[in-house]
Structure formats: structure tokens, C-alpha cells
């Protein structure tokens, strides 16, 4: 949501002053499609927005592997185990790439990790939920990654060019994840009745987090992330794109979506749905989700356990 600071800046910049006019020029530059490099001048506010947003993205990549990690040992076949492991390696690689972008903006990786495990910074809502069956693994890889790729594709045009370039590699790898997820779901819905039910139950569990995924329907013009052209589309546009692309793919498998109001208005082309509980989303992302505490505790533990690696390697780097 737009903080008072942004609104103030957007209003006052019109009234002169050297820094304000420079900020105004910058704003016009990015709004006209201009892209910025690491060494270029940028308003402090823009830099702060970038760091916060990109850091949360990096955190999400790192936290996102935990629910999937739980299933490496329980994967039903060797092929699935290998594919899942490859996906997890990709996600940790994305975290590495994305934290590098944050570091070049001025916040070291160690500080990102400190803030993540202390709960000071956030990670995406979908990674605060537990997984109950292999059905969840399929639904996550297919639909959570599909929702994520919509957001990430909108970052390919990000006004901060180094981040946009990283997204190219991320999107390329994500496309394999979606297919792996869809293949997993297809294998289960064409299997036994029990397997079908596992997918159906997982979908019931994941529908609300999926509807929360793209955030509150704040108009793009009021969204500071859009104003600075860090994102190139509004939250609701992303959700509409997700519904448009994936609801038909879900329904054609005979699966049921737990929203009686869900329908596409054929005249306007807009999807209607039950308003998600936005307060719940806020509670989840501030660390009050069903698996938030457990996941952060695990991350704390693993950071302590692998601390010796950094201690061994870093002196040599210095």
C-alpha cells in the first residue's frame, strides 16, 4: 500500500527544489520506460523500495524450498525425486541471484539472512503453509509457480535493469517447474480415486493462499511499486491473468474450485470471485501463518549448522 511518504513525495516534487526536481525527472524517466543501472543516481526512496521488494523476493525463494524439501525423501518415484531436487536447486539459485542484486543496492547478504530469521523482513504468503500430501507438491509446483511466474514476467520490464535481467534466467527455469507440477497433477488425477482426491483436497487447501498471492486489489496508479515502474502491472491485473489462464485448466481435469462465486463475466471478460480475507493475508505474511514459526525455526537451525562453512571459506576470500 502507498505509504504517506510516497504520496508526499509525488505531490511535493512539483514545487521545485533541486533534489525534488531531480526526483521528478527520475520519475518521469522510469515512467517513460527508462531503465536504471546500479551506479546511476536514484532517489533514496526508490532504492529503499527496491531493496525491500527484491529482498522479500529473495527470502521467498529461500523459504519456498522448505515445504518442498520435506518431500524429497517421500517422492513416489526416483524420477520425481530427481525433478523435485532439481527444482529446489533452482529456487536456492534464484535466491542467490536475487540477494546479489540486493547486495549491489547496498544491503549485504548476511544482513538479509539476519533480518529473515529474526522475522524483521517478510517472505511470500504461500510459504507460510504446511504441506499435507504429495498432492500439495503437485499443486504448489503447478499453480503456486504459475502465479509466481505471472508476477515475475511483469518484472522483466522492471525499471531497475539488473533485477530485470536476473528475472530472465528465473523465468526460464520456472517454466520447467510448472510443467513438472502439471505433469505430477495429471499423473494423480488419472490414477486411483484416492490419488484424485489427494489433488482435490490440496486444491481446496491452496485456493485461498493462491487468491491472496497477488495482493490486495490496489489500483496500479496508487501502488508505489507501479508508480516507480518496479512492477509493470497492478495486483488485480496479475490475479485476473492467473484466473484466466488456470481456472479452465483446473476445471477440465474435473477438479472443483472452492468458490461458488467464481465466474467470468463474458461481456467484460473480468473474473468475479469471493473477496479474499485481506486481514488474514496480512497476518500470514507478518509471521502468523500456520507454518511460519516452524519454517523460521528451521532456517535458524540450518544457518547455525552451516555457519562453519562461511567461517572456513570467508577468511580465504578476504
Amino acid at each position, binding site marked *: 500500500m502507498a505509504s504517506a511518504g510516497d504520496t508526499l513525495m509525488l505531490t511535493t516534487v512539483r514545487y521545485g527544489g533541486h533534489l525534488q526536481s531531480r526526483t521528478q525527472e527520475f520519475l518521469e524517466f522510469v515512467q517513460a520506460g527508462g531503465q536504471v543501472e546500479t*551506479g546511476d543516481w536514484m532517489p533514496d526512496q526508490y532504492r529503499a523500495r527496491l531493496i525491500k521488494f527484491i529482498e522479500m523476493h529473495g527470502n521467498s525463494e529461500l523459504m519456498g524450498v522448505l515445504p518442498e524439501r520435506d518431500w524429497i525423501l517421500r517422492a513416489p518415484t526416483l524420477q520425481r525425486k530427481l525433478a523435485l531436487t532439481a527444482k529446489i*536447486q533452482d529456487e536456492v*539459485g534464484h535466491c*542467490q*541471484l536475487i540477494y546479489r542484486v540486493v547486495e549491489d543496492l547496498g544491503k549485504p*547478504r548476511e544482513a538479509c539472512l539476519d533480518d529473515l530469521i529474526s522475522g524483521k523482513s517478510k517472505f511470500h504468503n504461500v510459504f507460510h503453509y504446511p504441506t499435507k500430501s504429495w498432492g500439495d507438491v503437485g499443486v504448489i509446483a503447478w499453480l503456486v509457480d504459475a502465479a509466481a511466474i505471472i508476477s515475475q514476467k511483469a518484472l522483466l520490464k522492471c525499471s531497475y535493469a539488473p533485477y530485470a*535481467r536476473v528475472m530472465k534466467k528465473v523465468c*526460464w527455469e520456472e517454466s520447467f517447474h510448472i510443467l513438472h507440477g502439471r505433469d505430477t497433477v495429471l499423473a494423480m488425477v488419472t490414477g486411483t480415486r484416492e490419488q484424485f482426491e489427494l489433488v482435490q483436497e490440496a486444491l481446496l487447501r491452496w485456493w485461498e493462499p493462491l487468491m491472496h498471492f497477488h495482493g490486495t486489489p490496489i489500483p496500479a496508479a496508487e501502488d508505489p511499486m507501479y508508480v516507480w515502474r518496479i512492477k509493470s502491472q497492478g495486483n488485480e491485473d496479475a490475479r485476473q491473468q492467473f484466473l484466466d489462464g488456470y481456472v479452465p485448466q483446473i476445471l477440465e481435469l474435473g477438479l472443483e474450485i472452492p468458490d461458488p462465486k467464481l465466474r467470468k463475466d463474458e461481456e467484460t471478460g473480468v473474473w468475479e470471485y469471493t473477496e479474499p480475507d485481506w486481514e488474514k493475508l496480512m497476518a500470514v505474511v507478518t509471521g502468523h501463518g500456520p507454518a511460519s514459526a516452524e519454517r523460521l525455526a528451521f532456517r535458524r537451525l540450518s544457518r547455525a549448522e552451516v555457519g562453519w562453512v562461511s567461517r572456513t571459506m570467508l577468511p580465504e*576470500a578476504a
Partner: protein
Amino acid sequence: MIFEVFRQERKGQAFVHGGSFHAPNREFADAYAREFYARRQESVALWVVPREEITTIEEFPDEFDLKYRRVDGYSIKARLKEARAAAENAIRLRDAGSAGGA
């Protein structure tokens, strides 16, 4: 130490910047580069360079506006039009001259 990676996607293509990573030395940098930028055969070759070895140059002043060394220094449209008109005129004069002589 931060290393920058440049990757070549196919033989014959230019090396393009791929990204960067931390590594304690060149030996680890070699292994990380392979993992980060070529584990799915998406690259045929990598250049791995310590960031501190790279010199960035960004200012290219052109005080004397030496446009004659570039294609945008030449606007031939008006001259070409004039030359074509002159050539047409010469042909017309020649034809009129030969008609008069017959």
C-alpha cells in the same frame, strides 16, 4: 570475492553478461559458475572474471561533434533529390536537342 559471469549460448555468438556470485577463490568460482550458469547446457562457454578486474568506462564526450565518422553524419536525401532532378533535366535537354536536330 565477487565474480562476474559472461556466457555464450551458442558457438559463434557473443558472450553476454549472465550475473554474479560470491566465491572464496577461483577454484570455487569455477564450480559455482558451472552450477549457476551451465547445469542445463544453457551455455557452451563461460568467462568468469573477478569483479575488481573489470574497468567500467561510462563517459564518452564528443566535444567536436565528429559526425562525419558515422552514418548519421550524412543526410543525402536533399542532395540525392537534386542530383536526380539534374539528371532528368539533362536527359530532357538532350532529347529536345536531338528532336530539334531531326
